[in-house]
């Protein structure tokens, strides 16, 4: 029944990090790739992001973090989603993330981590595949 349903993506900048290039580029790119994209703008708290994700009924959240605070901020977003019973929303992380932190992010529930040099088509593909799997499961 959901043939017409456009996949909805929230691109979000948690914390005070002002590096916005990646978030904006990904937002434009995913929009052109046919997704419904909502961009939060800078300086959102984890609580605001989780609430926006629920209010906007998104399938995916893409967190963009370049300040080094990715572990704490991502955990907070996921905790907030859990409190709102929305932890089925797929969480992706992009930015400057050292490889050493990948496993910890995945353990807390992040589906994929994208670092510099990733083509938008790769992000789009991940979103297509994971959201399809999520729909089939539900």
């Amino acid at each position, binding site marked *: 029944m959901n043939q017409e349903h456009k996949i909805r993506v929230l691109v979000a900048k948690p914390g005070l*990090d002002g*590096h916005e290039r990646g978030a904006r*580029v990904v937002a434009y790119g995913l929009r052109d790739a046919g997704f419904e994209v909502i*961009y939060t703008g800078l*300086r959102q708290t984890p609580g605001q992001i989780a609430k926006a994700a629920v209010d906007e009924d998104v399938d995916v959240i893409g967190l963009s973090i370049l*300040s*080094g*605070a990715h572990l704490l901020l991502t955990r907070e977003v996921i905790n907030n989603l859990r409190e709102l019973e929305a932890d089925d929303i797929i969480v992706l992380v992009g930015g400057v993330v050292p490889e050493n932190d990948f496993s910890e992010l995945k353990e807390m529930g992040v589906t994929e981590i994208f670092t510099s040099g990733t083509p938008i088509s790769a992000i789009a593909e991940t979103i297509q595949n994971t959201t399809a799997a999520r729909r089939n499961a539900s």
Partner: protein
Amino acid sequence: MFQDDEKEMEKIKHAEENWRKNLLEKRVERFNLAKSPTTFYSPAALTKHDFMEKVGFPGEYPFTAGNNPFDFWRAFAEDAAKMGYRPDWGGAGKVGKYGGFGTPADYRDYLFRMQSMGRKGGPNIAFDLATQCGYDPDSARAIGEIGRVGVSVASFRDFQIIYEAYTGDLDIDKVPSNFTINAPAAVIIAMYAVLAKKRGIPLEHLAGTPQNDILKEFIARGTYIFPPRQSMRLFRDICAFCVGHMPRLNINSIGGYHIREAGASRVQDLAFSLANGKAYIQAGLEAGLEVDAFAPRFTFNAFGGSMEMYQEIAFQRAARRMWARMLKEEFGAKDKRSMIIRQPITAHIGCSSTTLNRPLNNLARAVVGGLAAGMSGGMPGVYPPFDEPLGLGHSQEAVQLQLDATRIMIYEAKVADVNDPWAGSYFMESLTDEIETDALAEMKKIDDMGGAVAAIESGYMQRAVARSAYERQKQIERQETFLVGVNCFTGENEITVNVNREVEATYDPELMKTAEERQKAALAQLKQERDDKAVSGALATLKGHAADPDKNLMPGICDCVEQEATLQEICDVLREVFGEAEPVKL
């Protein structure tokens, strides 16, 4: 032009036409191309070039060939080689290494340790994001940010603790202080002034540079607090205060670098940063100052850069000429120091030119930027270290390679032995004119919108930069532009070359973990110990001043600082009067 010259030019034009038809076009046809993959510039490209008007001698208007006959560092290059000088160590009377982390005490202790190892530069402080955005450590907005990308400074007490590392030979009348701070720059400058007062040092002895370039924060870096127009009120007041009381302190450090890194094109970078500079000049004039009273105290951080070496050389030449002409012709500056772009580095590739894929290649990339710098009036500085995209903190190995590459260009390749080596090149002069023309057209557009402030209020600059960033990404994904190891030459026969990389344990990770809790506790203690009545009195006075546009806010901010009001309390009072800046939607 003489008649003979004209005849000669006709001959050249004729020859060029024949060459195009008989040689170039046939070759293009032979290889079945849509157009020639290369260009060639003959004197015909530059028929009206007036050397004195367009270039001039190094150190003379319009400064296209450089700010000086030769630079300070070049005068002592041989001595530096013989004594084994390392620029990352800093030196007495010099700017120290940029840094900051944790609580003020953590950073102070780190500075003591560095000083014992011979690093003796002045304070060059990186502030954490909470400080940069005007939030105290106990704010809900600051969770996870305290002491992370810089040191946390919530009060004058914090500022004083850092400066415990700067006494005696390193006292504040002997070494300059650099502050990478923008939205709350007025508060940090006030702390510096109050510190001088407490130490009995006359304000006119204070030297240094606050970044204080709020306009580019809206376009690129994102640490704004108040709306653009109100932010410029603060700039105006800082400008007047510095000119009146702290004449050795630079007023700002204008950055095009951040704007390009955020995705701006070369022309946008040039036009937007000079338009910002123009807005700061207008703010100084609005404060009732003569242009030559403050413009010599404007500095530039750096413009942005890219891998396109020729274009970046032309960019630097055009930038110097445009700024000089604007200051002289539009603002009537007479002092040469008002007309020059003072910046620590000229061209470079910009961190966004580095790649995470096959990262050692970034050394080759940065060398190209250094070459462009050496050929455009600067030190051939190789920047950044190759491991820049691998996460915060450069390894000792990467820094060593970066330093040595710069030295090889200076001492072995002798890149910096000639001033403006491209002067007179048919190609480079044409390219310089072209970039200047395009940037002037973009500046005119901004002028017609009402200037940089209006162009930021409407979101024009922010959206233009975002669109350019996206266009570039699309070009990369369509292979219209090539990045080695990213979108080409990625086959299975290519290998990744690694070098041993020991990340310098710059800052103690255990201290970083506990900094937030410790800094919150220190803040709670401050709030217990200070005179609350004096604090609220000073804040109320400041609020009154903020509501009166004719008042200079600096004395009131100094008073709040001295009474130990916190950074956020001061910003909150101003937020109440000025409102807050809104993030721009796409």
